[in-house]
Every structure is written in C-alpha cells, then in structure tokens.
C-alpha cells in the first residue's frame, strides 16, 4: 500500500528530477515538501560550476603553456656574433660553435642559417634593402645552444668565457632572460585563475549555506515534529543534504556542459593564432578529468555545507 500511495503521489506531482530524494532514512515519505529547495538553487550551482570550470581550464592551459615553453627555453642559450664583416663573422661563428660544442652539458648546437635570419627580420625591415642599398645589412650571426639541464648562470658564464676566447664580438644570453616578462605575466594570469576558483568555491558554499538556512526556516514546524517523534539531528540533516545534493548534481551537470562548450570554442579561437606559446597550452586528458571533477566536487561541497549548516542550526533547538 505504501507503494500504491507513493505512486499516486508521484502522479499528482508529475515527473520531477528531484523525486524520491527527499526521504527520511530511505523510507517512503518526503519530509521536505517537493520544490522547496529547488527553484534557483540548481541554476546558481550551474553558473558557479560553469565559471569554475572555465577558470580552471584557463589556469591549466596557461600552466601547460608555461611549463612547455619553460622546458624549451630554460635549456636554451643564444650566442650572437656581432661583427660587420661577413667573412670574419662566418669564420668566428664556426670557431665559437666548435669551442662551445665541446663544453660539458651542451646537448645540441645549431648555427642559424642566413636565410632563416633574414626571414626573422623581414617582417620589420622588408626584403628589398639589400637591393636598394647594394649591400646586405650586417645582421649578427646566431648560434642556438641546447643544454641538457637548465641554463644556470654558471653554465652561461662557461659558454660566455669559451666564446669570448675566440672573439670579443660574441654576446651570450640565456633565452629565459629574454622571455622573463612574458613568463611573469602568464604566471600572474595563472594565479588569477586559481584565485577565481577559490573565490567561486567560497561563493558556492555561501550560496548553499543561505539556501539551507532558508529551507530550515521554511520547514521549522516539520523539523520540530520529527524531533518530538524521536528523530535525530542527523536524520533531519540527511534529508536536507540529499535534497541539496540532488540540486547540486543536476546544476553541476548543466554547468559543466556549458563550460565545455565555452572551452572548446575558445580553444578553437586560440588554435587559429598559431603562436608557439599558445599551442602548447592545449589541455591534456588529465586536465579534462579535473574539469569533470568540478561538478562532483561542487556537489560534495554543497552536501557537506548543507549538512553542517543544518546540524549547527539544529543544535539551538531542543
């Protein structure tokens, strides 16, 4: 008969995604009337989850770009041979390359070919200068040195000493020092993303706290009855916890779907840029996994917040 009673009630209320969750200790009766806790709550959670997932995706993406670029650049040292006479420059370049190659810790070395250098400066100076002035611009020669480990100041100093022994025209720089400001900007963005995630987490907890309190107020009479019939605080808390948990799970799923759409669209845009740093920011599978965890963690957070809010408030009742 309890089955019959329940089905009849179900029919009256119509299909509800929240149905059946507002039960006391797995029993049949919804202790909190249907719909009290729903309303805006799933949507608030959906928005929070979407924003959190987007901020997290941004943070992860920047992190990937930073660490990929870092690995590439930290192990790199650039040697410039600044010498106007072309033949002298070429000879000195070869000699420096030979000297540096023999140094310990150098894993690779490449003399950047002339054409590549030309194409590097072409966007700024154009290609017609040589014809117009009758002589090529004295562009420094470049040697790209790869180190097995990071370009520590001592390593750079050793390379500099070796190059200087060949010619005073050699200028040696760790590549990371060139890109430091870019790194710092990216790290700042990453910190911002993490701070946003933290703030959104707090805001979610606050929203759930308020919702739980107002639900408690609205159901005060029922709670008192349950208490007088021998119900425990934990039983009452469980009812609220489930109800909010269900709202959060529904809202979280919607929020994640929304965030994924935004993330994929943004990723497409950035792919179009074709810039090295940004390409390295692509999300890997573990990042997607983390994003999928956002609604789950949000649901857990909502349930825990609801539980503690309710238990705390009940302590003031007899």
């Amino acid at each position: 008969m309890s089955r019959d009673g329940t089905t009849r009630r179900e029919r009256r209320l119509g299909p509800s995604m929240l149905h059946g969750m507002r039960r006391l200790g797995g029993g049949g009766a919804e202790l909190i009337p249907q719909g009290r806790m729903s309303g805006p709550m799933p949507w608030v959670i959906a928005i929070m989850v979407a924003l959190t997932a987007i901020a997290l995706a941004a943070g992860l993406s920047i992190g990937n770009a930073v660490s990929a670029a870092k690995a590439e650049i930290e192990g790199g040292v650039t040697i410039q041979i600044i010498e106007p006479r072309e033949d002298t420059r070429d000879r000195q370049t070869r000699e420096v390359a030979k000297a540096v190659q023999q140094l310990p810790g150098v894993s690779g070395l490449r003399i950047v070919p002339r054409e590549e250098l030309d194409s590097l400066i072409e966007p700024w100076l154009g290609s017609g200068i040589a014809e117009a002035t009758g002589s090529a611009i004295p562009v420094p020669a470049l040697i790209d040195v790869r180190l097995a480990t990071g370009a520590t100041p001592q390593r750079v100093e050793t390379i500099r000493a070796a190059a200087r022994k060949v010619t005073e025209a050699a200028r040696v720089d760790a590549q990371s020092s060139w890109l430091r400001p870019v790194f710092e900007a990216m790290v700042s963005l990453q910190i911002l993303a993490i701070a946003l995630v933290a703030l959104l987490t707090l805001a979610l907890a606050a929203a759930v706290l308020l919702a739980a309190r107002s639900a408690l107020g609205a159901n005060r009479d029922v709670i008192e009855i349950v208490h007088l019939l021998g119900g425990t605080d934990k039983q009452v808390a469980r009812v609220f916890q489930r109800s909010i948990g269900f709202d959060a799970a529904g809202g979280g799923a919607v929020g994640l779907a929304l965030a994924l759409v935004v993330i994929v669209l943004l990723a497409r845009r950035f792919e179009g840029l074709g810039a090295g740093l940004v390409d390295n920011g692509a999300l890997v599978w573990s990042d997607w996994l983390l994003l999928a965890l956002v609604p789950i963690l949000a649901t857990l957070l909502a349930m825990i917040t609801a539980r503690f809010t309710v238990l705390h408030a009940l302590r003031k009742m007899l």
Partner: protein
Amino acid sequence: MTAEGEIIHFDNVGLRYGTEREVLSDLTFTLYAGRFYFLTGASGAGKTSLLKLLYLAQRPSRGAVRMFGNDAITLSRASLPALRRRIGVVFQDFRLVPHLSAFDNVALPLRVAGHGEKDIAGPVRDILEWVGLSERIDAVPATLSGGEQQRIAIARAVIGRPAVLVADEPTGNVDPEMALKLLRLFEMLNRQGTTVVVATHDLDLLRKVPDSLIMRLERGRLADPTGALRHPPARRT
C-alpha cells in the same frame, strides 16, 4: 533512588516562559508504569505546559525530573531522541505534517525509528482501520475534518507502541461515540502495559476509566485531594 514501578518523577518542578511569571510551580509527583492518568484543570491552568515537560518539548526552569531512570535535566541533546521514541504524543493542535498523506503521517514514527517499509505498511493500515480512516489513507491533513485529523494524530502516537502515551485533549474534536471508542483504544494499550496520561476538560470521560488516577492542575499547581498520586491504590486486576 528509584521507587519500584516509577517511570517518571517530578521533584519541585517549576516552569516559566521567558521572563513571565511561573505557569507551573512546585510540581512534585510520580507516574507509575502501567497506570492510567487523567490530567484536568481549567483552560490556562497549565495542562499543555505540563505535558510538554513530559514529552520533552520543554525543559523546566527549576526542579528535578527523572524519566526512565535518567536525569532529564542534565540529559544531553544527543540522548533525547531515544527517550522521545518511548513516548507517544497526541498534540492538542495535532501537528500533522501538512504535505504528507494520512498513511505517511502515521508511518513517520516507524520510519524515524528505522523500520523497513515492509514492516510499516501492515501496522499502519491496521491502526488506520481501527480509527476508521481506511478510506482516507492517501488524504493530506488539509482535506481531513478536525476529528479525522485528531484520529490520525492518535494513530501516529500509538503506532510505535510507546511506553508512555501522552494525549492532550484527544477527544476534543470527535463525537461522544468516537470519543468512547478512542478511550477504549487507550485502555487497551494501557492493559498491554502502556502508561497513559490524558489531559481533558471532559469530566464524563474520567468516570469511564474506573482505574484511572486524576491529577488536577489549579493555576499551575497540582492538587492531589485524595493523595492518590503520592500513594496510588493497588490496581484492580
């Protein structure tokens, strides 16, 4: 020191709401297991207030209360539910859960106590049949008459077979015939060992339970003209 058969003991108990004057004063009495008590008194004399102390909805402002061998004053919040489950209550204002059906309202104490659904349906239907509400099993309280709500409240109070049944004006909204029938239900439970405390204005009712003991409240004080509360006569068997 617990007297034999003692189930509840009040010692010099007083109650005031907020900072107002005491609504109950100097209450000293003992309730014995298996007895049938009537609590009478004029409106405003403090009957409901005294019952609230009995069903642990209120703590006294002074005095000592012992229930089932526990000191009810120093009892922790965590141990209240276990005691409350041994007490069935019919509230003067019924206090049914408005959005639950008659069935679910009556089933509530069993669910709270953790009984499985298959142990609930049978007893709930039996008791609803007993109070004549089989047909209204799916009705929510708002669609029931005052007397019907009262009978649901009584069914809910007795479904868990409590050690003590506390009923506040349980026959106030029913016709004399139903009142007598409900009284028979209380007597039946009483014969099975439940201690019954019924607050009522209805002096006719008192005469219908021959073994009953009468507690009379006069402006918050207990009158025990016959001394029957302090020295209850032996039960007729």
